[in-house]
């Protein structure tokens, strides 16, 4: 259990570094994947009986790494991820009735909704600290960013699913 947690924390750190260095060269029209958000979303999505304390723990880990590599104050991403995690758990509790407990048909719309939620509200937080910041404006690069993130998330979804199946986690 502890080893699994430590490995996941290290994975979060590795993805944070990758996100801010490696993927700079692979941005498409300025859009880059938010790997930490994707991993956080997948962890909560696949948690069978995860408690709220567990969601809080992963929100702190992922949010801390997002905030440490960004310009904003500590807490913005932690709070947003915590809200995302709690809402996602609530939605998953009401949806989990099918034979396949984690179908992609649930994953795609939920990821889209929560990613846009996270993007809009992080803009709102930034606007709160800096009123010149534009909160949200629809543009093609934004759409591209959502699609790019969704593609990486779907790929990660299947990788995680295979991983869970293989190691019987």
């Amino acid at each position, binding site marked *: 259990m502890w080893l699994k947690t430590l490995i996941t924390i290290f994975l979060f750190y590795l993805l944070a*570094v*990758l*996100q*801010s*260095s*490696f*993927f*700079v*060269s*692979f*941005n498409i*029209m*300025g*859009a*880059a994947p*938010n790997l930490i958000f994707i991993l956080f979303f997948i962890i909560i999505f696949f948690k069978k009986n995860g408690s*709220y*304390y567990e969601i*809080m723990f992963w929100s*702190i880990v992922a949010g*801390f790494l997002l*905030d*440490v*590599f*960004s*310009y*904003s*104050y*500590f*807490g913005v991403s*932690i*709070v947003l991820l*915590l809200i995302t995690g709690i809402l996602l758990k609530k939605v998953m509790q009401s949806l989990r009735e099918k034979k396949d407990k984690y179908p992609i048909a649930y994953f795609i719309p939920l990821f889209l909704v929560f990613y846009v939620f996270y*993007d809009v509200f*992080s*803009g709102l937080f*930034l606007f709160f600290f*800096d009123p*010149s*910041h*534009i909160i949200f*404006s629809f*543009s093609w*690069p*934004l759409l*591209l*960013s959502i699609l790019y993130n969704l593609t990486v998330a779907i790929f990660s979804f299947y990788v995680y699913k295979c991983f869970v199946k293989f190691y019987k986690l």
Partner: protein
Amino acid sequence: MDFSIKVLLNKKNGVFLKILIGVIILSVLICILNLFQRQVKNTFYIISEPVEKTFSMAADNTSVFFASLLGKKGLVQENEELKKENQKLLSEISLLQDDERKNQMTADILGLKDMKLLLAGIIGLDSQQDIISIDKGSTSGVLEGMAVINQQEVLFGKVIKVFNSFSKVMLISSKSSVIDVRVQQDDPEGTPTKPVINGVVKGSGFLGVYLDLVPTDQEIKEQDILITSALEGIFPKDLLVGKVTKNYKNDQKPFQQAQVKPFFNIKNTDNLLVITDYKKEK
């Protein structure tokens, strides 16, 4: 009946207590992190710098590998060289045009040479906010508000936060960025009385920018070059900003906007120059 109500109340109190404990722990943690923000972030950058540099190099090599797979290696290299040469030429043209118009060539050249520059390496990009990290901080003399350019005098942005060994640079494409610019138009006739067109370049996120606040009675064309006007007193004048690609003119509105292709390119840049001091025009 009384017993069940008591149990329910206890359960409710228990849940409330748990939430309260959670909120208190979280608030204390966030307060502590913000109290020691500089130290925490600086330590993290020091730890992550070697890993980030390795990943950046790996990314450069991978992108070259993919380009060569597609048989474009030569073209990519040639394109890069041409881009650099083009930017250099544009820089020279903008300088010459300005010098000619004002007839102060010597003074301007001296002004450029008066810039004090500090070489800094890029170590990371926050693509959500269009903010980059550079490996020079307060110990190297970097201060908030300093302009950041490349060797071809292309403006990248300004320093917004300084740590001991690192700094955060807000790119001109950040949604919080607004800079005063002047439209540099091709003027083959060399009309000396041609009016100066001023405007502002605003960041639109995702490494994009647009031109705004240009009066509708002024005429801007595609391919017009935008350079800094130094009106806000942060950036030296005549730094290259971008090129107008599409003009949105509407007579109903007092100002016109234009789509701009910025000259800065984060993908192929490893090192930047921080302008630590420059001769300001009186």
